[in-house]
């Protein structure tokens, strides 16, 4: 009856931290925090929050940048898939873009900053021969008040994520047939896809889109690196208040977290409205028989946006790599005056501990998430039911802004004396790894031909034999891919690591962002390399291991 425990354990392990965390955040917002003598409920803290300078501007920035970056990302992905799905170029770009999925947000943001800043790589390459600049221009590009560079950073990370989600949904729609059918009726590629397939695809990726909105409206690391500062987005100010030694600020931070919840909820509500409008437009176009036969411009633009967003991150990463080997590197030199291994030599001895913690937390949380996912999926099959509403709670950690509950979770861990312990860190990572693990495994699991299972039962094989000798081996690739995704998620987690690790358990990402506060580009370069390398190793294992184990079996290769 182990499988019956699966959904139960999952719900308890995931919603427990979120619920406790939210309670620990929301109650202080109304003045309730007995440990600090707050036992009466009051609205004073909410009033204090609204009296903060430019608080509505901060909230508006969070809302606008979150929605706009999501809208832009989904538009790029949608038009790119519509215009190019099924072509060889599509397959090639897909391979180019997918490694970016595993790149932590902070690393991508740094990459972009190193590229587009007035002293960045682009300005260096164009100076002085084109621009005449001997010194960087006094231009406000990074940290611009409109949040444009922050949105660019978010888009660069959300596009690969959404693309991968769409790719996972594509096999479930008749792509080639619809393309032929639509073409025979005189529809262009884009119009044929959007009218014929996009609604079905979008239904599959709706949840990840919501997760993107929740993340983008409450992001901290990307906002710190690229976002506006006068004022900063809401989540950034929240974290500042949380870290303020002044106790009264605890309540203010909690009140701010409430506002953050409201902002994210509003963003989601507005998005649902946008969906409605999009659907109406779609119906209008379909019923109007809009053919869009000459869609080369749209296709070209989608391709351009896709290449640009991926290319910018890669170019930025290359710049980061250069910085990690750079000696003195003055503007407008396109290359460092001297190269040195000094940064690497200085950093490497200190990277061992965080590296071990990263590997352990990533491996353990992914392992547990994988086990729980399998148990949940087996239970679903057993009962013949799709996951009940309880299991929908699985996605809660993706839809509730991290800042809104990790602080409360931290308080809870302090109470129980488990702060900065490996189990607590693994649990906090599990909360975020589990939804992705489940999402990654769900479709391949359901796609498995269950007649194999019946056959094996007919041969007298017990349930566990069938699982371990037939189903899991046949799903090796899907399981390892799930593992690689889970591991990558764990590696990229910043806020939970900082708050639950409390600085005593540090990972590559938390160390990188801490060091980044010093702005040392060389060291950031070294750490970003590791941030990039670890998840890619995971995916390499997921690709190479099945190929190696099953090298004699052709049908196991794809």
């Amino acid at each position: 009856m182990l499988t019956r425990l699966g959904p139960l354990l999952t719900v308890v392990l995931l919603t427990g931290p979120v619920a406790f965390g939210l309670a620990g955040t929301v109650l202080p917002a109304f003045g309730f925090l007995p440990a600090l003598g707050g036992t009466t409920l009051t609205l004073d803290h909410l009033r204090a929050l609204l009296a903060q300078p430019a608080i509505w501007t901060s909230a508006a920035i969070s809302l606008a940048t979150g929605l706009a970056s999501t809208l832009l990302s989904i538009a790029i992905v949608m038009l790119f898939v519509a215009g190019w799905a099924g072509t060889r170029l599509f397959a090639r770009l897909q391979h180019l873009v997918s490694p970016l999925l595993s790149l932590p947000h902070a690393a991508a943001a740094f990459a972009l900053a190193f590229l587009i800043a007035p002293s960045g790589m682009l300005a260096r390459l164009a100076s002085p021969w084109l621009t005449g600049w001997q010194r960087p221009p006094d231009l406000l590009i990074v940290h611009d008040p409109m949040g444009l560079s922050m949105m660019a950073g978010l888009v660069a990370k959300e596009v690969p994520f959404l693309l991968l989600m769409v790719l996972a949904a594509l096999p479930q729609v008749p792509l080639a047939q619809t393309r032929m059918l639509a073409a025979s009726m005189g529809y262009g590629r884009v119009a044929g896809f959007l009218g014929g397939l996009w609604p079905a695809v979008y239904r599959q990726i709706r949840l990840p889109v919501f997760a993107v909105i929740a993340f983008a409206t409450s992001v901290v690391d990307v906002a710190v690196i690229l976002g506006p500062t006068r004022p900063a987005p809401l989540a950034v100010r929240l974290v500042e208040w949380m870290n303020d030694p002044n106790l009264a600020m605890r309540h203010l931070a909690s009140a701010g977290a409430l506002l953050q919840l409201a902002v994210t909820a509003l963003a989601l509500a507005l998005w649902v409205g946008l969906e409605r409008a999009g659907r109406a437009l779609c119906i209008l176009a379909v019923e109007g028989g809009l053919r869009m036969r000459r869609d080369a411009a749209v296709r070209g633009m989608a391709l351009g946006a896709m290449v640009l967003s991926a290319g910018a991150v890669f170019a930025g990463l290359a710049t980061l790599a250069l910085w990690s080997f750079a000696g003195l590197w003055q503007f407008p030199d396109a290359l460092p005056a001297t190269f040195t291994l000094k940064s690497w030599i200085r950093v490497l001895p200190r990277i061992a501990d965080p590296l071990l913690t990263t590997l352990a937390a990533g491996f353990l949380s992914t392992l547990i998430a994988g086990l729980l996912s399998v148990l949940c999926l087996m239970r679903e099959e057993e009962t013949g039911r799709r996951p009940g509403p309880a299991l929908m709670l699985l996605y809660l950690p993706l839809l509730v802004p991290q800042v809104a509950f990790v602080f409360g979770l931290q308080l809870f861990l302090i109470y129980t004396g488990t702060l900065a312990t490996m189990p607590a860190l693994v649990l906090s990572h599990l909360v975020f790894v589990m939804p992705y693990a489940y999402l990654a495994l769900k479709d391949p699991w359901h796609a498995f031909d269950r007649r194999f299972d019946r056959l094996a039962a007919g041969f007298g094989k017990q349930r566990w034999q069938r699982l371990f000798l037939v189903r899991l081996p046949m799903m090796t690739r899907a399981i390892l891919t799930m593992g690689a995704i889970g591991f990558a998620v764990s590696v990229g987690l910043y806020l939970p690591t900082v708050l639950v690790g409390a600085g005593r358990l540090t990972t590559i990402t938390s160390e990188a962002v801490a060091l980044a506060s010093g702005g040392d580009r060389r060291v950031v370069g070294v750490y970003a390399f590791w941030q990039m390398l670890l998840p890619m190793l995971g995916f390499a294992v997921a690709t190479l291991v099945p190929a190696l184990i099953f090298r004699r079996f052709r049908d196991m290769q794809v």
Partner: protein
Amino acid sequence: MEGLFLDGVRIALGGRLLVSLTRHVPPGAVLTVMGPSGAGKSSLLAYLGGFLDPAFTACGRALVDGVEITALPAEERHVGILFQDPLLFPHMSVAGNLMFALPESVKGRAERRRRAEAALCGVGMAGLGGRDPATLSGGQKARVALARVLVSEPRMLLLDEPFSKLDTQLRQQMRQLVFSKARESGLPVLLVTHDMADARAAGGEIVKIGA
């Protein structure tokens, strides 16, 4: 009673009765069930195999050689199945597929290997045990699937339109092979199909459901 006995089997979905059947199938004989899609053919097979979706309700019982298989869990029923597709395990060699199906009572690696090779020989596939199933032709795969189900020493055979995906010539050969093997082994067979030619080749009683 020898063979398969379907004793008042009734399968319903949401109050709608799909199948109601009482029949005796002696060892080596074939009972053919025919009917349009959605008539309940597959649910009858699932019921006998032990995989009926909880959405269906079923009553009655099925016995093979006096053992009430419907009272047993799927893995203890020893009901051999052949589907439309050969469904060879892609992560095992041809011999591996057969050795996987061999009962655990056959001890010793060498003996198991010998039994697998013998079964392959019996379907005209001698010497191909080391091959990757993906490299076989459609007809070869079908033969391996047959050999595999036979070495598992089933109590009976369920055939789920096993010939429908083969081309005409192959279909003839496979029909003969499957039915002759079943007779040889004295297995009661339940064949589900909507191809009249299958039913004729089987030569047994024909039941139409859902008509």
